[in-house]
């Protein structure tokens, strides 16, 4: 029974408490699963945090992991989605020498074609920012690498689901108890 390993996005709604990140990441560590990316932020509900975790596992394993995450006292709800079920993006920044902007006219074309934005420019360097799919960001990095990149950083995936996630109803059910 060799089930296919997929890129899956696990979304977790939690209380905003110290130590919860540790508790959730331990669930992956214990099963020897590498986290491809992890992003945490405020969710659509005040005081409720949202984790977006990308892992490469089978769906069977992902369901077990989701249950283990939900079992944590301060997890409100966890979901697992395939790429097709989500709208997702990553963002990245490049720091590049300003001289290149003038010495290498091709760079300007790359910037335009890549749909990226210049965040700031000064005498020494300029900073370029781009959001998009991993392959677009990788392609831009390869193009710019030819000229030399002073710094590069990429965020984890953020994703929203096409289907609705009924967190607000769950929370209001608690408040009405």
């Amino acid at each position, binding site marked *: 029974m060799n089930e296919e390993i997929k890129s899956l996005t696990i979304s977790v709604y939690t209380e905003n408490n110290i130590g919860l990140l540790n508790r959730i990441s*331990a669930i992956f560590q214990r099963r020897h699963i590498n986290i491809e990316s992890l992003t945490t932020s405020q969710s659509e509900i005040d005081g409720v945090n949202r984790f977006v975790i990308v892992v490469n596992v089978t769906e069977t394993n992902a369901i077990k992991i989701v249950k283990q995450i939900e079992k944590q*006292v301060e997890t*409100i709800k966890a979901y697992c989605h395939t790429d097709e079920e989500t709208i997702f993006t990553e963002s990245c920044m490049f720091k590049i020498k300003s001289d290149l902007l003038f010495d290498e006219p091709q760079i300007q074309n790359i910037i335009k074609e890549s749909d990226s934005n210049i965040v700031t420019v000064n005498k020494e360097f300029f900073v370029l920012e781009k959001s998009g799919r991993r392959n677009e960001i990788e392609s831009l990095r390869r193009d710019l690498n030819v000229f030399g990149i002073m710094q590069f950083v990429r965020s984890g995936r953020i994703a929203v689901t096409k289907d609705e996630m009924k967190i607000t109803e769950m929370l209001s059910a608690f408040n009405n108890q």
Partner: protein
Amino acid sequence: MKTQTINTKQEVAEKTQRISGSEAIVRSLMAEGVDILYGYPGGAIMPVYDELYKFQDKIHHVLTRHEQGAAHAAQGYARISGKVGVAMATSGPGATNLITGIADAQIDSTPLVCITGQVPSHLLGSDAFQETDIVGISTPVTKWNCQVTKSEDIPEAIAKAFYIARSGRPGPVLVDITKDAQFGELDFKYEKCKGVRSYYPVPKTSQASINAAAELINNAKKPMIVWGQGVILGQAEEELKAVIEKAGIPAAWTILGASALPTSHPLNIGMVGMHGNYAPNKLTNECDVLIAIGMRFDDRVTGSLDTYAKQAKIIHFDIDPAEIDKNVKTDVAVLGNSKESLAMLFDALNENTHESWLQEFKNLYTIEFEKVIKNDLHPTKEGLTMGEVLKQINIESKGNAAIVSDVGQHQMIACRYSDFNITKSNITSGGLGTMGFALPAAIGAKMAAPEREVVAIIGDGGYQMNIQELGTIFQQKAAVKIVVLNNEFLGMVRQWQQLFFDKRYASTEMTNPNFVAIAEGYYIKARKVIKREELADAVKEMMTSKESYFLEVCVEKEDNVFPMIPSGASVSDIRLS
């Protein structure tokens, strides 16, 4: 504390009082009904001990000889009483010494509240004296934990801790409290916690799942129940018995499920698992419907999953949704509290009997009796067996004692051969397999239920892992009966070495001290038995003693425990020799 909780206004302090954080800790414990706690003082928890001194007529602190002993004693207390056990320790080594007990409680679903002192908050992260990140360390082995750095957060943290420890599937929680929070003042008002908004402890049992389960069971020709500790934790012993009797289903138990149904019940077919009984293991692979109740298909129960009950429809009753389909794919999952779900099942079941199916269990029992049990309980060879010691204890206790076992061969023998009439009577370290558990756990059990006879059955290896707790037994005058089954080996490991490592007995032979002298050094009455003729009298003397009593029985050195499912083998490949 950002988590929203539901609290009810009641309990000790009706009106607000200005008190210290440490007093708030003790008052919070009393508001939760704590009358005994186990612990060990030290720098970062001293303010709390100062308060315990003031309240010593209301709350009894038991000074163990090691913090691990405190954690296990709190477990023993919780396991026999069904109440939350409380352990306390200082920061650093005090806190880390609790960890084994906490991990044990986590895997065996035992409600514990552990309170640790912590260095003052301005020193956190500075590698201060006796500072350790106990919240980080305990995270993977607690149901919930938190650190309190402000006095005013103490009552809420403790209220939450007790609520989480005891509700749903119980487990250990840890509250780490900095020394400045203990010294600081707060307006004290205690409100018991009744809910945490992100936490759903008991899933609702759906009638549809009950109907689906009942239909499978009502149509089954060879149904079999395997129940676990979920029945005991859910206080569903009567409901289980009613279900078993109404539908006439042979029922087996996991090690932690033992004693939920009396051993003598005609439908009780014994223990499943690696050293369980022959019939229930073998017939797991013959039944047509397997009804698992409050158990988690541990690998020591299932053996190889690829060959486990493949022919059967699986019904799984559990309070924890994460257990469903974790190890064994179920056909019908029934979520919820076992007390409620079993009562609902009872209503949906037809009255039935399965005489010829039950006869199959009896036939296999006869084989097990001839090949194994007879030799264990009625040996004809010279050396004493562990089994005959248990048989003698049964005779004296009439099946009414609580048996606290450690880990290893003697544990399997104790669980296989003890007679249990009363629930919550088998206290043992099941999931974690913690050697050293029994002696301190027996102290906790005896103090929680002084009216019960509590007998600790321990091997010579595990005994020496927490032997220091003899000091606690002596100081507390805890009338624990201690039986050490001494084979001068780490017997279970030796058995595996014999069977799977060509008898290379690496580091399993023990040169033991004079155990009787050690017990007597703690002023505990002690006796050693070498010959069969002395055994009955010695056990009788122990069981009739009003005080604690130590009995060492020198048993055959190289006896093995059978039946046995070799690690990774199928339950149907269970060996009788």
